[in-house]
């Protein structure tokens, strides 16, 4: 954003008053590489370790202080080599990884093959209670370091071998052609010796190899990150640093943005979406993110696991007026879903607009007919279960129910069943207590079609909450994972997705967008496909 020198001074004065570091000499330019911006943040739920962070707030920090073998392009989502010089395989099962030369951690320690192998062994080991341990589940020896029950019999994954200072080999338990593309996930980041030698100190002030380093960290309130001047990568930070401030309520963060106390908000509250154009003008961004909301069904319940129930599910799907709900409740920050993946994958990545076909279109009359053909709703009604503590779940569940009730001409056909906390909601799902459809949200771990299908619909997969099981689907996924040709693999995954459609294993609702608003000081603000701001590209004036 260009501004005149005059206005530049005013902004500088404000910046001086607000941020710790002020404007440098040339305040009128398009970007000051020394200026620090402030951004909204939430308190990470788990300790800030790469293999222990499974939510977006901790993920933000990891994205700033770590770089892994691969990195997902902030715009296209494509996995590109970052620290990996090359990852070679001849059989999609044994991989040889070569790490680029010249990379160090911000404390000066060299990033070697050992840094990766140690980190992965730490993440997989049961002893360390890492929430993301299952990411290493494909590597040989995982069942020894992380047995389903009992004590672990090994400390390190037998499938990982360091073969040189910069090379190591990975042996998987099965063929998995897109394995290298998953390596951009934070859990696969390298770790310095300091992490293992003085773990407590590291967690208090993490040290990584990314474009930023942690200057200070006050748990639960603020983290100050500063640009690492000796960062060897080509995605060096364009600003002087970022102050992440914890906000309990995104409304307060938004108010602070309006008052000029905050530079960047990456979660515009639903209630403010109507005003955002007025308040911020073009300093607002609303782009697709790799998040899809669906309604899952309890297939462990006899009533939902019959031939006829498929028709009921299809009917329910057609009874939901997605367009109206996304327009009125979400102000177009969500898009009606027409498949089970996400637009961020792109056509080549496997997103297929309209794969769901007429089953995802709003056709109330046919919906009613289909449900009647399927023997009506089990027990004459459905309840949609959801957690009422976050998001605007209550609003949309009520709207979905209204839509179903209208289509069926029955005021009591659908009711909402709120659950107080997310933990309790997850508990009821794990204990198989659902009797009707329930909210299922999925934020991708890495931008691959595999990540939208396998964890959610494969037999006994970790996020297959409805316990749906289909041999045809499983076979197709297995074949797709073995396929070395990417285009063919994607094609197989899409065939698997068609199986999901034909059985209506889950009703796709909408794709979620990421949103961000920023102050006049900032320019070049972007959100990556994970709806995290690309901090290192932000320019501050």
């Amino acid at each position, binding site marked *: 954003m260009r501004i005149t020198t005059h206005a530049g001074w005013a902004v500088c004065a404000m910046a001086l008053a607000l941020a710790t570091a002020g404007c440098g000499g040339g305040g009128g330019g398009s970007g000051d590489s020394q200026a620090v911006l402030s951004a909204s943040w939430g308190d990470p739920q788990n300790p800030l370790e790469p293999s222990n962070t*499974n939510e977006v707030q901790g993920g933000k920090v990891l994205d700033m202080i770590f770089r892994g073998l691969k990195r997902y392009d902030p715009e296209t989502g494509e996995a590109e080599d970052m620290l990996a010089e090359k990852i070679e395989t001849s059989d999609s099962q044994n991989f040889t990884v070569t790490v680029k030369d010249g990379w160090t951690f911000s404390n000066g320690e060299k990033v070697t093959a050992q840094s990766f192998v140690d980190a992965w062994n730490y993440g997989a080991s049961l002893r360390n209670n890492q929430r993301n341990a299952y990411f290493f589940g494909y590597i040989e020896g995982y069942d020894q370091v992380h047995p389903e029950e009992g004590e672990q019999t090994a400390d390190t994954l037998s499938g990982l071998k360091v073969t040189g200072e910069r090379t190591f080999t990975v042996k998987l338990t099965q063929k998995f052609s897109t394995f290298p593309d998953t390596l951009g996930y934070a859990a696969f980041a390298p770790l310095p010796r300091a992490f293992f030698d003085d773990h407590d100190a590291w967690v208090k002030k993490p040290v990584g190899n990314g474009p930023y380093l942690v200057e200070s960290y006050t748990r639960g309130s603020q983290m100050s990150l500063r640009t690492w001047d000796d960062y060897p990568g080509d995605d060096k930070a364009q600003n002087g640093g970022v102050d992440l401030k*914890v906000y309990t*309520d995104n409304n307060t963060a938004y108010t602070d943005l309006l008052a000029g*106390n905050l530079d960047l908000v990456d979660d515009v509250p639903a209630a403010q979406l109507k005003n955002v154009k007025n308040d911020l003008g073009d300093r607002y961004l609303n782009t697709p993110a790799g998040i899809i909301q669906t309604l899952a069904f309890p297939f462990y319940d006899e009533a939902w696991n019959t031939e006829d129930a498929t028709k009921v599910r299809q009917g329910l799907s057609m009874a939901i007026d997605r367009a109206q709900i996304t327009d009125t409740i979400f102000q177009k920050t969500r898009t009606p879903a027409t498949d089970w993946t996400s637009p961020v994958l792109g056509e080549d990545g496997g997103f297929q607009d309209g794969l769901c076909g007429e089953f995802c279109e709003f056709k109330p009359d046919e919906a009613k007919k289909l449900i009647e053909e399927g023997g009506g709703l089990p027990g004459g009604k459905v309840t949609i279960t959801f957690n009422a503590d976050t998001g605007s779940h209550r609003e949309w569940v009520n709207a979905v129910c209204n839509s179903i009730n209208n289509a069926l001409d029955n005021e009591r056909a659908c009711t909402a069943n709120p659950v107080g906390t997310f933990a309790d909601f997850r*508990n009821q799902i794990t204990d198989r207590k659902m009797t009707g459809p329930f909210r*299922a949200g999925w934020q991708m771990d890495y931008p691959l079609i595999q990540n939208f299908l396998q964890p959610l619909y494969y037999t006994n997969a970790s996020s297959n909450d409805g316990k749906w099981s289909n041999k045809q689907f499983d076979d197709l996924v297995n074949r797709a994972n073995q396929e070395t040709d990417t285009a063919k693999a994607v094609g197989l995954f899409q065939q698997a997705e068609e199986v999901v459609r034909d059985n209506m294993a889950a009703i796709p609702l909408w794709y979620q967008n990421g949103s961000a608003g920023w102050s006049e000081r900032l320019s070049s603000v972007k959100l990556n496909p994970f709806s995290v701001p690309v901090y290192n590209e932000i320019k501050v004036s």
Partner: protein
Amino acid sequence: MGRYVVRRLLQMIPVFIGATLLIFLMVNVMGDPIAGLCGERQCDPATAARLEQEFGLDKPVWQQYVTYMGNVFTGDFGTAFNGQEVTELMGTAFPVTIRLTLIAIVFEIVIGVTLGVVTGLRRGRPVDTGVLLLTLVVISVPTFVTGLLLQLLLGVKWGWIRPSVSSEAPFDELILPGLVLASVSLAYVTRLTRTSIAENRRSDYVRTAVAKGLPRRRVVVRHLLRNSLIPVVTFIGADIGFLMGGAIVTERIFNIHGVGYQLYQGILRQNTQTVVGFVTVLVLVFLVANLVVDLLYAVLDPRIRYV
């Protein structure tokens, strides 16, 4: 007096144990918190089992409670899910909330009592009616409305203050949140003082004091106010605990990272250790505040003696 205090302190023990047990059970009834730690996926059973062990959730509730209480007496309040010690959380949260409460209490005493005295002495006059109406408005408008409105007006529209409080939360930034937090209680204090003053104004000792020819100021402050303050002190004393624990709404609006914030976070994440730890301290604050109030009675009214 000494024996009275000892007796009261001993009475606190069963109250304390009962209160913590109730809270412990209530948080436990909410269910297993581990499931919420793994995002939108099932925790793998091995990790879930390890986490349950780490947080002591694999034992029966009574045993958890006994262990917890045992640890509390040695000063160990357990660990929150994000790996922080609960005592560390308290160390950051309580100073902030104490500052906020102090400001609120000062507002209550200074503004509330002054308004109460002024209106009590001028009953039925326009000042009285005006203040009464005002307090009625303050009582009937919910705190979050007052808070958000003032935040928007002073913080965004006029730019007088920062809409949110920084993480250090110094006194000057807490003035507006303190006022918002105090608003409802302030109105009650005004009304309580007013009624009490108006009632005592007609009592014999005031007439005697006036007849003795004492200056009006001395009559009001030494005789009238001192005797009228007993109900007000009771109210403010009970309010201290209430303000500290009930600041969740105000703390959310102004992004203050105090006790309310930690409690809210703890409840959302079903973190027994945080919730029980903080509430335990709040229970203690309540009990001590009540004791101090009872002792203050004797200071205010010499007829009250403790034996």
